[in-house]
């Protein structure tokens, strides 16, 4: 085994050794001063939760008609679809040999042939400011970050990715190219650190990634802003192809990683349970695994027996498995019918109006406060939403 010895400043030495290999292999070091261990070796280096699209608590497929902006399938990934008909789904088409099982697929089912000037269509990922303080944004020591991902698209050409600083109204935009149609390709993009505009150290929205799909001229008529600066809409998506110009087009993505530094490292595959628990900070489904909000005939996740009479009736109370980002929006569902805003009485065999509320740490589902008829056998499922 060949090796190089480096003598320490005052004592000792470090040996760098190479094993016997066939051919020439490359070990890429950072282009800037870094500590190798913190950039390339330690865990939780991927700032993105569910970058491999393995968690989908809300459902695995959703049909969009005439546009939609919401979280519908894979956790933490919001689709902003300003127009067109799409099927958004968690898919099993993945790059070969990379260890991925799932991808996010956007299937165009009705083309957007003439985008309106204000059309905004993208995938969006959002960060809390308190998760990004180590980027040191707004200081002279601001860190660069590198985004890497696997993409497969029917439409070839130029695509734009934006980092959007929501706290300070600043952004930076970079392009990548899909070279071959319907072929998995690996892309890396490095964004310089921003010495202006600190990110709030709180649980609010601070930074977003926009991965554009088709944009109107309001966002494409200027010059692409490839350095950090005040956000100018016309400079955000210059050159972006129209991913939705044919109803035959599809767009897949998986293995999305954002990490500190100027070098993309291999995707950090995290265990399913770890990734699920991290998603729960933003959305928690009380449904059993493999069942989804609004599903009729779902398993009963929570049940209360006989209730007292008086001004309150059945109450189900439980803690969340992890602290949520904010006080969540609560939706109760009848396990029997799947109806929202309802719980099911197995005594009367009917859905009853539910009142759901929560804190960051737990929730309560009760009868509607103004209708305190005491029933028996309260069964309910619910979701808690604290997404950015």
């Amino acid at each position, binding site marked *: 085994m060949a090796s190089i010895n480096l003598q320490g400043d005052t004592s000792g030495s470090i040996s760098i050794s190479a094993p016997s290999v066939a051919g020439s292999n490359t070990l890429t070091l950072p282009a800037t001063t870094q500590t190798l261990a913190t950039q390339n070796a330690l865990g939780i280096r991927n700032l993105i939760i569910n970058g491999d699209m393995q968690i989908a608590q809300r459902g695995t497929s959703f049909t969009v008609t005439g546009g939609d902006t919401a979280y519908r399938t894979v956790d933490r990934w919001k689709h902003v679809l300003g127009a067109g008909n799409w099927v958004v789904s968690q898919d099993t088409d993945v790059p070969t040999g990379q260890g991925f099982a799932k991808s996010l697929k956007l299937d165009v089912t009705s083309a957007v042939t003439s985008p309106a000037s204000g059309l905004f269509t993208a995938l969006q990922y959002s960060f809390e400011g308190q998760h990004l303080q180590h980027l040191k944004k707004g200081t002279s020591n601001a860190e660069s970050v590198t985004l890497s991902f696997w993409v497969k698209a029917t439409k070839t050409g130029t695509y734009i990715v934006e980092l959007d600083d929501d706290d300070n109204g600043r952004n930076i935009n970079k392009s990548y190219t899909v070279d071959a149609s319907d072929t998995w390709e690996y892309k890396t993009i490095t964004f310089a650190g921003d010495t202006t505009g600190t990110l709030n150290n709180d*649980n*609010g*929205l601070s930074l977003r990634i926009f991965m554009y799909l088709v944009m109107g001229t309001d966002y494409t008529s200027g010059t692409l802003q490839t350095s950090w600066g005040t956000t100018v809409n016309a400079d955000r998506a210059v050159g972006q192809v129209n991913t939705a110009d044919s109803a035959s087009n599809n767009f897949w993505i998986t293995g999305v990683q954002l990490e500190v530094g100027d070098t993309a490292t291999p995707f950090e595959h995290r265990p399913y349970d770890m990734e699920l628990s991290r998603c729960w900070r933003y959305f928690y489904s009380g449904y059993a695994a493999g069942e989804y909000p609004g599903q009729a005939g779902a398993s009963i996740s929570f049940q209360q027996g006989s209730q007292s009479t008086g*001004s309150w009736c059945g109450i189900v109370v439980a803690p969340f498995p992890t602290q949520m*980002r*904010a*006080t*969540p*929006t*609560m*939706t*109760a569902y009848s396990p029997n019918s799947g109806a*929202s*805003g*309802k719980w099911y009485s197995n005594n009367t065999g009917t859905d009853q*109006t539910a*009142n*759901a*509320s*929560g804190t960051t740490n737990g929730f309560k589902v009760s009868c*509607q*406060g*103004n209708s*305190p008829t005491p029933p028996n056998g309260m069964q309910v499922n619910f979701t808690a*939403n*604290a*997404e*950015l």
Partner: protein
Amino acid sequence: MYRKIYESHQTLSTTSIQKISDNAVIPFDPANTDYQEYLEWVVEGNTPEEAE
């Protein structure tokens, strides 16, 4: 469209609002994005329905 919810019918204190389209109960938490959307809706001149 939104509807008021009285958390306690004894005090008639409104501590959350319900989105009528999906019956989601939205807390009055400034960090909740659904509440932020509700506030924008109110700023546009809309008012929620009274509780049922």
